[in-house]
């Protein structure tokens, strides 16, 4: 396998595709696709290798999903985008503001996709993303508003349902993250749900043990160990080794003057103990920028017992960027490449597992998402 890598970028003003040469040295940008659309997520279908789905909306128009069967050459809009059920007249029904997250279904279920929305809803497609239907066990759950705090209780850009994970050994076993609401799992394809938040701090609430209401920012299931989950939360970095159900705060091992607040977390595709995060300032009024204006990635190689700062090549000062939860990714090359897109429209790359960094694109719109195709 060569080391050519293709990155899929979702931004506030459209989507781009970045392709590298065999050495990951030179990069070329293809785009914009859907110029003017907020593209919250752009994801390739790993089951056919060429279908792309883009979660899009504009400032004026409602949400939709665009599909391409040829890696972005031609696009077609979903004929039935994710939408909540219509309620009877006089009742207050919910409307999807934007599709925030896209996850391809299980390897044995070609054509199945999941979508997480804002406000928080979970949708499924069985025809490659052309038509979507609500997962009633979630969207209609009588406790949903209690879990999430209602549609007002979320990020500044609205409540998000994200980190939709399909267990590789069981297509009916789903994990989801809710900002806010917490991490939940279903073992029956979404019919019923259980909270999965033991051990996770909730510093924004009065002291107590809470079953739900937490704010996971990003959750990943390790591709080499399907019992291991990592989570970057609003209140720390955590690891969970199933069947246990209590998260361990591995962010306590981060440097105290950096802290363990951030949006993304990514994992090495072959080593269960290696992960990367991008810390941000979660003090005072929560600036949510690089800590002290000095961007850095932190890596652990032992499951979170120790973390190493990786900032070689990154700006040394006065760089007040941050990295959104979908905007960090790793490739699967022999020596892992790590990538992140910034809120300032820069795309940074490391082809030596974070040891050194280079900016490979700049002047793009605010980057929402980076995925490897």
């Amino acid at each position, binding site marked *: 396998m060569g080391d050519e890598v293709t990155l899929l970028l979702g931004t506030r003003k459209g989507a781009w595709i970045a392709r590298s040469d065999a050495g990951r040295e030179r990069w070329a940008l293809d785009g914009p696709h859907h110029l003017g659309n907020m593209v919250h997520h752009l994801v390739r279908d790993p089951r056919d290798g060429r279908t792309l789905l883009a979660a899009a909306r504009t*400032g*004026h*128009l409602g949400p*939709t999903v665009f599909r391409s069967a040829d890696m972005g050459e031609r696009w077609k809009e979903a004929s039935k985008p994710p939408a909540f059920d*219509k309620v009877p007249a006089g009742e207050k029904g919910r409307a999807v503001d934007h599709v925030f997250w896209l996850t391809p279904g299980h390897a044995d279920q070609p054509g199945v996709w999941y979508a997480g929305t804002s406000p928080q809803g979970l949708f499924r497609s069985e025809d490659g993303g052309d038509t979507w239907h609500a997962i009633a066990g979630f969207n209609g759950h009588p406790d949903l508003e209690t879990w999430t705090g209602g549609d007002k209780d979320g990020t500044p850009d609205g409540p998000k349902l994200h980190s939709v994970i399909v267990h590789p050994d069981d297509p009916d076993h789903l994990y989801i993250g809710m900002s806010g609401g917490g991490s939940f799992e279903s073992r029956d394809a979404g019919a019923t749900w259980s909270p999965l938040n033991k051990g996770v701090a909730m510093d924004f609430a009065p002291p107590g043990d809470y079953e739900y209401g937490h704010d996971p920012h990003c959750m990943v299931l390790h591709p080499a160990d399907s019992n291991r989950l990592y989570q970057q939360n609003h209140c720390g970095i955590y690891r969970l080794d199933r069947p246990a159900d209590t998260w361990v705060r591995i962010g306590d091992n981060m440097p105290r003057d950096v802290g363990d607040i951030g949006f993304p977390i990514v994992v090495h595709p072959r080593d269960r103990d290696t992960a990367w995060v991008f810390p941000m300032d979660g003090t005072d009024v929560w600036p949510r920028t690089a800590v002290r204006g000095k961007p850095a990635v932190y890596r652990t190689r032992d499951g979170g017992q120790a973390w190493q700062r990786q900032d070689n090549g990154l700006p040394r000062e006065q760089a007040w960027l941050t990295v959104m939860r979908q905007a960090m990714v790793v490739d699967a090359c022999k020596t892992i490449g790590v990538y992140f897109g910034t809120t300032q429209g820069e795309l940074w790359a490391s082809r030596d597992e974070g040891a050194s960094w280079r900016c490979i694109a700049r002047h793009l719109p605010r980057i929402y998402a980076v995925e490897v195709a």
Partner: protein
Amino acid sequence: MIRIAIPSHLASYTDGAREVEAAGKNLAEVLHDLDRRYPGLRFRMIDEQDRLRPHIKLFVGSEMALRLDQQVTAGELVTITAALSGG
């Protein structure tokens, strides 16, 4: 038939046409017929609870329409506008 003025934001659905026609006795019926002719257009401007999306307005002639059950008559011009400020 009712004439519909299409904003640039929605012209991708009408093959670039900025004025099209649709049938109906009120705005709701006209928009359903518009969607039948140009699939997908309606959902971008009307949400799943049949509410106009926040930055969309409809005018019948030069009067802003406040309700989708507002009556329209043959030959009238319905203008769809999309207005949003900021970056």
